[in-house]
């Protein structure tokens, strides 16, 4: 089973990196994006096909390792392998 995790900065926190990228892009003539938010994407390969069985562990992983709850929100879903 493959799980896709997205980790992004919490909405109320300025995304310094996203902002810097956006400004640099406008400067360079790529003006299509008015705002950019940058985050991380993880694909996890997990044994079995039972989401409920791994849910607690995936939650724990997201909370403790893949994201920093002080700063970031995460979301995950099962995707086709």
């Amino acid at each position: 089973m493959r799980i896709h995790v997205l980790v992004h900065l919490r909405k109320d926190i300025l995304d310094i990196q996203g902002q810097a990228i956006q400004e640099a892009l406008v400067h360079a003539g790529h003006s299509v994006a008015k705002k950019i938010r940058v985050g991380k994407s993880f694909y996890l390969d997990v044994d079995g096909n039972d989401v409920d069985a791994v849910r607690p562990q995936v939650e724990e992983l997201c909370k403790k390792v893949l994201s920093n709850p002080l700063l970031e929100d995460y979301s995950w879903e099962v995707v086709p392998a």
Partner: protein
Amino acid sequence: MSQQIRAAVVIFPGSNCDRDMIHALRDVMNFDVKEVWHDDAVPADVDMIAIPGGFSYGDYLRTGVLASLSPVMKSVREHAEKGTLILGVCNGFQILLEAGLLPGALRRNVGMRFRCRGWHLRAERSDSPFTEAAMLEGDVIHLHIAHGYGNYYLPSDQVARHRSQVIFRYCDSAGNVSPETNPNGSLENIAGISNERGNILGMMPHPERAVEHLLGGADGLKIFRAMEHTIRQRVGAFRS
């Protein structure tokens, strides 16, 4: 007295080896150095351009990519076409790759860690503008590396095409190139590579940090001297 070599050092927000490069070129090599800000243009009449290391734009997005998009790069490209010598060191190398002026890409070091350490390099060409009259093929020099993203990569179908452009490889003090003498996982121990025409060199090790014996070695001077030699020859060629 021969004329001073005119050099431009390009500075981005986040560059942090700019002052070192300027020191090496101005105070040690006695070049006439212009500092060029990222939103400016490199003057048309310089003999060489150095793009120093550091963390341009905080290394955001990908190292070197945002700098490669900044306004100053237009003039760098024009110089590249004209054949001006361009040296990119560390982050400067990354910028030149992202700008498409050199082949390949740099990835995170195998081992995932930043490494700062003296390393031996073997010169692979004696006829490059960056080695000529200063190094023979097979000569070993000693410089420092200081990077987290120095793992050079080329897709396998491009390796043969660019192999002759390799100028430096990581090696041991005797010049042996092997996996044990590879500090970061670089393909074929590549530490520095030029473009097809040969007027642009990107390298991870820092020649500008090795220009005084007090600080433990002066092998970096060989590269700057080779550049000076090349430039003076060219000027001579024009005049004659």
